[in-house]
């Protein structure tokens, strides 16, 4: 991409930036200046390369050498050894457990099973340069569509490709377009849904930050197909860089005449503006999002009418997800058949996932549809970190469900996941090890949904609160027989009766954990015991007298002074006042303090006495 002899690509995705990528870039500029190499080496700031766990990462072309966990101190060595003497620095390359070294990016196992379509340029070009995007074939698809195709032709291509909405629902993309295309209204709108609210998901963020022109191009092709002339990017306020980059991309495209009036000499004109969200999860739902753009509270409205009929300002509107737009230019460049050749019968192409949780290689990945969970977690993700065992994987955020070991060979596609009570969702994959309590996880998601419920319809507003109360009761040791059944009854009712997708899917995490981890709920309720020692009321701390050396450090650090003893007698915890802060365990020099599952008998006895007392009082 330049006449300089070396291209140095530094990943400046959010992960690498917070582990210090910008400092490294500064340092490179300094060192190159000192050594007079400024004219020979090209420093490019790219979007997310994917393997965030190895960050800060960089790739050096022409060879494609991959360096991980680079620090500013390493810069000088890279310049003198690699750039000047031509000897890549082996110690910064990735090594596996058998000490095999992977020198180039292509060899790195993390990339082996990945196929990059939407992410093709992410981590490869400078996202702020339209020239680099054009150099990789950017805006070629738009040109072809505008000069050689009719809107209906374009819709047919997408129909043939089998592309489905990447925001979670999996609705066939062409169908939305066709509905709006067939509508004769004079004004039509197109919206890019960048309100990535699912906790544990950062695909859209990385795409908008790493390759904004691709999204813009995809949006313009869609707009042409359905006859819209103005569009809105709705991006959440938590993503300031994404907002900046897309605004920058719009300005650049306008400058080159790739946006605005009669693009490529055709009759098609298009303009887009950016609107920012203000922190409401429900705004990811399309009707709520439309209300938010209109400056209202982001409440969803009942469908029908669908946005395709009556959307923004009452006009036909298509709302597509960022990643959906990201696939479109490549489909037109490489053909619908090529795209449809990847994936399964019903789910075509690739999907971007944010792999996080207790695995080795956390980061951003793009894999063909139909890959198994096992391949994704163990091959791409590198398996579990810290020698722990795999317990569950949560897909689809607060609307999704947990799957377990028995599902590891399930292919990842819309239908297979749905059948098993999970869902594709927007692409957040959170892998959990055997230290996680599933009741607590379910409570976490319920707490999220209760907090984010807009309050418009009662099943969601009141029902979810009831579910949360029951979960809180179970997790604090007051669970009773029948609670599980009550959760299931409520969950099913809420799924059926809620107005929008948030309420309809909110019970999923609870229902799926009950389905696959029922025994955990039962031991919380019956035995008052949390096997993973996560739920504080259902575990206690214990000092092993054989190990205790009587140093009194724990007693001194205890905030409620509930540890007593002496050098000879050793120390014991008075269980009743203990607040389970864990300080004693942290400070013990000989590891005599341990966590034990189950409520301590003394605490249980006290609680029983209290309930009896209140019963007597009631009578």
């Amino acid at each position, binding site marked *: 991409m330049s006449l300089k002899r070396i291209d140095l690509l530094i990943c400046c995705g959010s992960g690498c930036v917070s582990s210090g990528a910008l400092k490294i870039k500064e340092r490179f500029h300094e060192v190159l200046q000192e050594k007079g190499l400024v004219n020979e080496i090209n420093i490019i700031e790219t979007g997310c390369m994917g393997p965030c766990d190895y960050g800060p990462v960089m790739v050096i072309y022409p060879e494609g050498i991959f360096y991980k966990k680079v620090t500013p101190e390493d810069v000088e060595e890279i310049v003198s050894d690699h750039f000047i003497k031509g000897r890549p620095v082996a110690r910064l390359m990735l090594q596996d457990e058998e000490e095999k070294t992977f020198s180039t990016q292509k060899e790195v196992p993390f990339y082996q099973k990945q196929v990059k379509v939407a992410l093709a340029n992410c981590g490869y070009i400078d996202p702020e340069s339209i020239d680099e995007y054009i150099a990789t074939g950017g805006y070629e698809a738009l040109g072809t569509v505008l000069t050689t195709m009719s809107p209906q032709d374009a819709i047919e291509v997408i129909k043939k490709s089998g592309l489905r909405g990447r925001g979670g629902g999996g609705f066939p993309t062409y169908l939305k377009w066709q509905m709006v295309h067939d509508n004769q209204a004079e004004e039509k709108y197109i919206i890019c849904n960048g309100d990535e609210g699912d906790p*544990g998901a950062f695909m859209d963020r990385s795409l908008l930050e790493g390759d904004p022109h691709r999204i813009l191009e995809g949006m313009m092709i869609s707009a042409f197909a359905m006859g819209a002339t103005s569009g809105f990017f709705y991006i959440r306020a938590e993503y300031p860089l994404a907002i900046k980059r897309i605004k920058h991309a719009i300005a650049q495209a306008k400058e080159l005449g790739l946006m605005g009036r009669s693009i490529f000499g055709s009759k098609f004109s298009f303009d887009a503006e950016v609107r920012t969200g203000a922190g409401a999860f429900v705004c990811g739902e399309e009707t709520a999002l439309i209300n938010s753009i209109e400056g209202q509270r982001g409440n969803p409205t009942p469908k029908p009418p669908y946005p395709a009929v009556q959307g923004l300002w009452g006009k036909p509107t298509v709302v597509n997800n960022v990643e959906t737009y990201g696939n479109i230019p490549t489909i037109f460049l490489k053909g619908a058949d090529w795209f449809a050749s990847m994936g399964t019968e019903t789910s075509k192409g690739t999907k971007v996932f944010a792999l996080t949780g207790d695995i080795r290689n956390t980061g951003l990945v793009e894999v063909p549809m139909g890959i198994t969970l096992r391949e994704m977690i163990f091959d791409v993700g590198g398996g579990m970190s810290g020698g722990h065992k795999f317990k569950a994987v949560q897909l689809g955020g607060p609307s999704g469900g947990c799957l377990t070991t028995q599902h590891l060979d399930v292919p990842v596609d819309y239908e297979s996941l749905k059948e098993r009570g999970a869902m594709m969702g927007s692409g*957040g994959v959170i892998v959990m090890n055997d230290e996680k309590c599933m009741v607590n996880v379910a409570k976490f998601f319920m707490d999220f949904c209760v907090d984010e419920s807009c309050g418009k319809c009662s099943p969601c507003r009141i029902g979810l609160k009831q579910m949360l109360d029951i979960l809180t009761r179970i997790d604090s040791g007051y669970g009773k027989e029948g609670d599980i059944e009550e959760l299931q009854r409520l969950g099913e009712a809420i799924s059926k009766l809620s107005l929008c997708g948030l309420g309809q899917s909110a019970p999923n995490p609870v229902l799926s954990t009950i389905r696959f981890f029922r025994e955990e709920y039962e031991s919380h309720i019956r035995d008052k015991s949390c096997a993973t020692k996560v739920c504080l009321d259902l575990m206690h701390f214990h000092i092993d007298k054989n190990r205790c050396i009587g140093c009194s450090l724990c007693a001194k650090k205890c905030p409620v002074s509930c540890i007593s003893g002496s050098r000879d007698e050793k120390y014991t915890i008075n269980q009743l006042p203990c607040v389970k802060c864990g300080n004693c365990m942290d400070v013990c020099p000989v590891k005599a303090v341990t966590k034990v599952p189950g409520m301590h008998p003394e605490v249980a006895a006290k609680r029983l006495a209290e309930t009896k007392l209140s019963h007597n009082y009631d009578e």
Partner: protein
Amino acid sequence: MTPASTKHNELYDRLKAVIEEKKDLRNPLIEILRTAQEIFGYLPIEVQEFIANEMDIPASKIYGVVTFYNFFSMKPRGKYMLNVCTGTACYVKGASRLIQMISDYLHVGMGETTKDNLFTMSAVRCVGACSLAPVFVIGEDTFGRIENKDKIADILKNYK
């Protein structure tokens, strides 16, 4: 609007200019509220009423919007918002412990502001930096993989 200090009026003048500028956009309310919050630091009832008058829309509607979105606050906030991510990935990697550590260090609870008005600690739902979990954000800076209090102290001392 009792304290008619000059600084106060200046802020309202700035807000008025912003409203003038954005008035003709289609439905600019949320964008205007965002700028208003940048100017005043928060959105007290007086500011909401001012916007209502300027834009000629009911104050109740503005109140409805302000209370709906997490981003808007009706309470004064510190110079820096310290947002701890409580998304799923951070939860799995110990966000609750991180909150406890920050809270111990700054002596504030969730939603509270430090005595020197420097930091307000609040929780956000996922900032999309999941691979660095657990994380917190100050302004546009993300800090990840926080394992101990020393690291927190190191970071926070740079904010004055």
